[in-house]
């Protein structure tokens, strides 16, 4: 996260790949992103996505969650093993907690819903490409929810699963709809620090142990 590989200058040099089983939606994304990033390819199934992403090596993959034969999670798990440098941004119509958290845990760098405006989508792609994490307010809410309810009982694995107060504050502001810049101003810290906090949250989310996750999911009647 901290090693920032000098990003290519023009934003449209970002190479983006779209995975979605709805052709109409792929076409829409392509049209909306035209001129802002370079959409180098698209795929409509897990197998197709895995082989083409491997061949093209895009900077960012826009990934749908719900697809036949395994969905975005399957793509993530396969591609991440062979191409760890490819970054994933989940772009889904679902904002159900289990989808969001599940994809983040599988290794997506961010999660946005399909109602997002094209400007915000382009910005999110850029941020993910630069190694930053993109949290929608809703995602921040889920994370807070997941960790808040555990704060009193998380004696089993406190190091791994706890959020620091600062991280929690950052998440709260994110959930309230603040941009990184505004959070930095609000908390009197630099934007870079905000990004670090958010990245740490993401890291903790991916590393949280299975037991806690299943408890959390069971509590919310997700499983």
């Amino acid at each position, binding site marked *: 996260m901290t090693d920032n590989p000098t990003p290519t200058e023009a934003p449209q040099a970002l190479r983006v790949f779209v995975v979605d089983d709805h052709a109409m939606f792929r076409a829409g994304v392509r049209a909306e992103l035209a001129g802002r990033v370079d959409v180098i390819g698209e795929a409509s199934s897990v197998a197709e996505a895995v082989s083409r992403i491997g061949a093209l090596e895009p900077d960012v993959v826009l990934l749908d969650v719900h697809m036949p034969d395994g969905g975005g999670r399957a793509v993530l798990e396969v591609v991440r093993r062979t191409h760890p440098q490819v970054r994933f941004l989940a772009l889904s119509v679902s904002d*159900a907690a289990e989808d969001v958290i599940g994809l983040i845990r599988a290794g997506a760098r961010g999660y946005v819903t399909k109602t997002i405006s094209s400007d915000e989508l382009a910005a999110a792609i850029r941020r993910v490409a630069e190694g930053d994490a993109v949290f929608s*307010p809703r995602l*921040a809410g889920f994370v*807070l929810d997941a960790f808040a*309810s555990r704060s009193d009982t998380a004696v089993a694995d406190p190091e791994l699963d706890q959020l620091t107060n600062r991280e929690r504050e950052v998440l*709260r502001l994110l*959930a*309230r709809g603040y941009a990184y810049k505004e959070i930095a101003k609000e908390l009197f810290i630099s934007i870079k620090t905000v990004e670090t906090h958010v990245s740490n949250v993401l890291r903790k989310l991916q590393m949280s142990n299975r037991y806690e996750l299943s408890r959390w999911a069971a*509590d*919310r009647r997700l499983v």
Partner: protein
Amino acid sequence: METTRKEPVITAPTAPRLYRARDRRMVAGVAAGLADHLGIPATRVRVAFVLLLGFSGLGLLLYAAFWAVLPQRARTSEDATRRSFAQILPFLVIGVAVLITQGILFDSVGAAATGGWLIALVAVGAGVIWHQSDPERRRQWSETLPQMPWLAAVVDESDRRAFLLRFIGGGVLVATGIIGVVAVYAPSGDIGAVVNGVIFALVGLFGVAVVAGPALWRTFNQLRAEREGRIRETERAEVAAMVHDQVLHTLALIQRNAGDVKVVQRLARGQERSLRNWLYKPTASPTERFAAALEQAAAEVEDTFAITVETVVVGDRDTDERVGALVAAAREAMVNAARHAKVQTVSLYAEAEPDQLSVFVRDRGAGFDPSTVEETRHGVRGSIIGRMTRHGGRAEIRSEPGTGTEVRLFLPISRATAAAAPARPS
């Protein structure tokens, strides 16, 4: 299901019909049912049955006959009592004593007595198999497999182990009984022939099992597939009804109002929300839960002003009057944002902590200078600040022209009420 049963439990006010009891039963509920019908203590009936054992197993025969014939009383709510085998023990002891006494007094281990016993054995075995199923289930089976209802009666997916136990046990009883009867009434002279007969009978049973096994197995799967199909069908019907009632109507309205962007957006948003709730959300009543109430308020504002309210609620708790006031203040703040901020999106964030509820309503719209408008804005003063103060909370309004407005609402909760209300939906 229960109410559609044919048994006229309620409609017959005359003498209670004869049923097998479901509660207070020891073996199959025959004795208790008889006792209910006759109006005498169940113990007397049981003792009578046990004593009748002495007459060539007549008690057992009668019991089996009653068992096979009597319907079981319809299930009621107070069936908590389970059979206790400790209770059966005294009757078993008495029964054995009676048998021994009979043997000593009359030395009647003769052919007639044995024959009675064996017939009783057959009856019990048949009863076991028959009562493997209840009438409802038998009916269902004969519907699903009209060509061989008996086979369907044999397979019951819900408790396969019990089925195996009972069916095989019952079959063995029947076989033994029949063989015994044959051996007693057509005596071939030596005991070896009887033993051989028993062995051959068992081999026969085994053979039947081997032959029928694959067919049984197929029927199991067929029944299961049929049941799953039914469940899927029900779900499909539910989805179809939902799509018909809401989605198609919304799409029709959108086609008619295709020119009016605002209306189309409002319809699409409302439909999306309702579909999403239907798909993902466990339904909670807005009158009972804080999160549901806030979401409803946000939905109303969305519908009224054709904006998007990005709602994030962390945690939940039960509502009361004060929480209701908080929701109303939040609603007012959203309405203000929708009216004056001139934006398409307002974000609403709420968090239920153990000791405090907080709500934040934020927009990135026009904003205003709080010092200049405060005196004239009764909406803000009365509906937001005043309401929060009256209920022991507080409200802060932060706004700058150009950067938008955030309304922050806080409502402290005393420890006692917080403990009484679970913090999360369970």
